[in-house]
């Protein structure tokens, strides 16, 4: 494969690398005090333009499976879809932070690091080899550790960054340990070779390696019992960073889990489906029960995201085409619900300071009727009320679980959804049936409004396009089976 073909297949990645490297130069050479504002403006538009350009370039990629770089990097329809989702989420998250009210994180370095993290996510999605997987994962994680502690004068932000870093390093260690065992027993790190080596008798070593690998990956999607970091990091990190954490990285990590289970370890699906069922049940229960007592809205959304990952894993555990399609649809709705929720939270401030307590939302309907209505739609969608987007995500994964014979899993899922509905509905009750202690600031920035409108439109009108979407998703992931 010659150079031009390589560029044309890995075009989105090359675009992001080029933009990131030029951001380094722009930030380094234009950063004198008088031009700081204009530099920041340039950096913002460069990074947003980079995401947009990379997104557009996805449409120029070849449709079939192409393997590059000596079998380390592969794209296919599924990878392109997930890359599009990750880029869209990254665009939303970066767009939200650029409203000039970024809690001190809206700096050139922030945009550069987010760009690098998104590049890491794209590489994770395309990883076709355990080493490429690990390198992509680190390229994604390192910038996220840094931006979690970006507000260096805040103790909570530093604590969040440190906690995230230490636990992330531990999970990387587990993942590497598992990868080394897999390499030792399969004789190769390439997914395709691992899949081949599973054709003859499967050794215990490979299974143990796979368990460690999945544990490391489960940390990245914050599935229970590897979820300990999530509430603290979500709460401590500056809100724009939390928004990024909530919207994007899990898309890439979930894609990794799908690639590892459905492709590399497809031969021992009976082994990993047990693990995924356990992760799923634990996440659904922890997510639903943990959120009930929370007073901080970011903490509550952290538990809510743990529960969402549990529901998505339920579809994955089914191990069928239907289940995989369900997970992809679930992740799609998850990105938009996260973007919607955080565009609202980032618009709420009192005396120019961010509000984070759930009780601060009380009386929102009388002071900010539009925000309250938007929040109501997002909360109903997260709770899974038809005909909103969140309902269809849950519908597909539970249907797949039932069809695969995992009826108890689906029942637990439905029960925890009911428990989860309690805390989503509590927010709606606060907004509509209680009075505000003190009024929140007026106004909502243009960026927040646009993201909110886009995600609300997606959530409400999702049922119109669900047929086409599931067709597209099904056609793209059929290569797994």
């Amino acid at each position, binding site marked *: 494969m010659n150079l031009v073909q390589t560029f044309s297949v890995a075009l989105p990645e090359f675009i992001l690398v080029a933009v990131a490297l030029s951001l*380094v130069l722009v930030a380094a050479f234009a950063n004198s005090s008088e031009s700081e504002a204009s530099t920041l403006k340039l950096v913002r538009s460069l990074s947003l333009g980079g995401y947009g350009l990379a997104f557009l370039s996805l449409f120029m990629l070849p449709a079939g499976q192409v393997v590059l770089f000596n079998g380390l990097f592969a794209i296919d329809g599924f990878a392109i879809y997930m890359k599009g989702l990750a880029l869209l989420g990254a665009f939303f998250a970066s767009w939200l932070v650029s409203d000039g009210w970024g809690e001190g994180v809206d700096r050139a370095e922030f945009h550069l690091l987010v760009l690098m993290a998104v590049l890491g996510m794209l590489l994770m999605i395309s990883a076709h080899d355990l080493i490429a997987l690990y390198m992509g994962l680190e*390229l994604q994680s390192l910038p996220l550790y*840094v931006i979690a502690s970006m507000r260096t004068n805040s103790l909570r932000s530093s604590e969040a960054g440190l906690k995230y870093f230490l636990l992330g390093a531990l999970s990387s260690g587990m993942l590497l340990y598992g990868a080394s065992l897999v390499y*030792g027993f399969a004789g190769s790190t390439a997914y395709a070779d691992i899949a081949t080596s599973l054709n003859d008798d499967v050794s215990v070593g490979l299974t143990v390696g796979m368990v460690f690998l999945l544990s490391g990956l489960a940390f990245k999607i914050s599935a229970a019992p590897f979820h300990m970091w999530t509430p603290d990091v979500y709460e401590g990190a500056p809100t724009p960073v939390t928004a990024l954490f909530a919207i994007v990285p899990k898309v890439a990590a979930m894609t990794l889990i799908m690639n590892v289970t459905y492709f590399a370890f497809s031969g021992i699906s009976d082994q990993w489906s047990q693990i995924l069922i356990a992760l799923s049940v634990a996440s659904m229960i922890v997510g639903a029960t943990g959120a009930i007592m929370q007073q901080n809205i970011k903490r509550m959304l952290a538990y809510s995201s743990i529960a969402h990952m549990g529901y998505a894993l339920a579809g994955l555990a089914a191990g069928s085409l239907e289940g995989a399609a369900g997970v992809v649809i679930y992740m799609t709705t998850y990105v938009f619900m996260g973007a919607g929720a955080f565009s609202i939270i980032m618009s709420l401030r009192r005396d120019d300071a961010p509000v984070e307590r759930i009780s601060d939302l009380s009386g929102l309907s009388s002071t900010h009727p539009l925000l309250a209505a938007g929040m109501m739609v997002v909360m109903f969608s997260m709770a899974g009320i038809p005909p909103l987007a969140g309902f269809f995500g849950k519908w597909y994964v539970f249907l797949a679980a039932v069809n695969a014979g995992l009826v108890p899993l689906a029942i637990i899922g439905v029960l925890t959804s009911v428990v989860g509905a309690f805390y989503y509905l509590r927010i709606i009750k606060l907004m509509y049936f209680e009075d505000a202690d003190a009024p929140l600031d007026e106004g909502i920035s243009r960026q927040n409004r646009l993201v909110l409108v886009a995600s609300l439109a997606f959530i409400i009108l999702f049922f119109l396009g669900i047929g086409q979407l599931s067709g597209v998703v099904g056609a793209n992931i059929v290569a797994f089976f």
Partner: protein
Amino acid sequence: MISSGFFYLFALVTCLSGLMVISSRNPVHSVLFLILAFFNAAGLFILLNAEFLAMLLVVVYVGAVAVLFLFVVMMLDINFSELREGFQKYRPLGLVIGGILIAELIATFFEYSDMSTKLPAQQGVHNTRALGQVIYTDYIYLFQLAGLILLVAMVGAIALTLRRRSGVRRQVISEQNSRTRQETIRLAKVQSGKGAEETGQ
């Protein structure tokens, strides 16, 4: 015969110094034992005919990483006995988890029978050249990716630690370069017995 003797020597010293790293009371001693462990691991690599990795281990880990550790340990002045206070409390849990891990490792060790087939093929070149051939051709993607990760680490470290303080006089190189002789040098005729200031030019 001799090489197996050396193997046991290096392996034994590596394991013992590894134990000393985690058990010695003085953190500086821990780092020194770590360096000893690195040296012996390098010896093991030489026995495997991997001279390049052995050199790398000595140059990078002993020469750079361990010295950095030493600086950090000496400068931070951490009271390690205070850090160890919770150790007794968590010992049972740690033992259980460690025991499970060891049991798994032993189980996998018994599974592992045929190692010879999984060694990379000899290419008839010495290992420095072989590594170079692989890294810059087959694995160029990973090599470049490692470069990007290091760039992220650098940007991240600077972003977290750089504080722009006000009231600090900074060097502005472009201004320095654009200064002309006329605006910076004043020639004064100094009369004997008087200072340059008093001549009043």
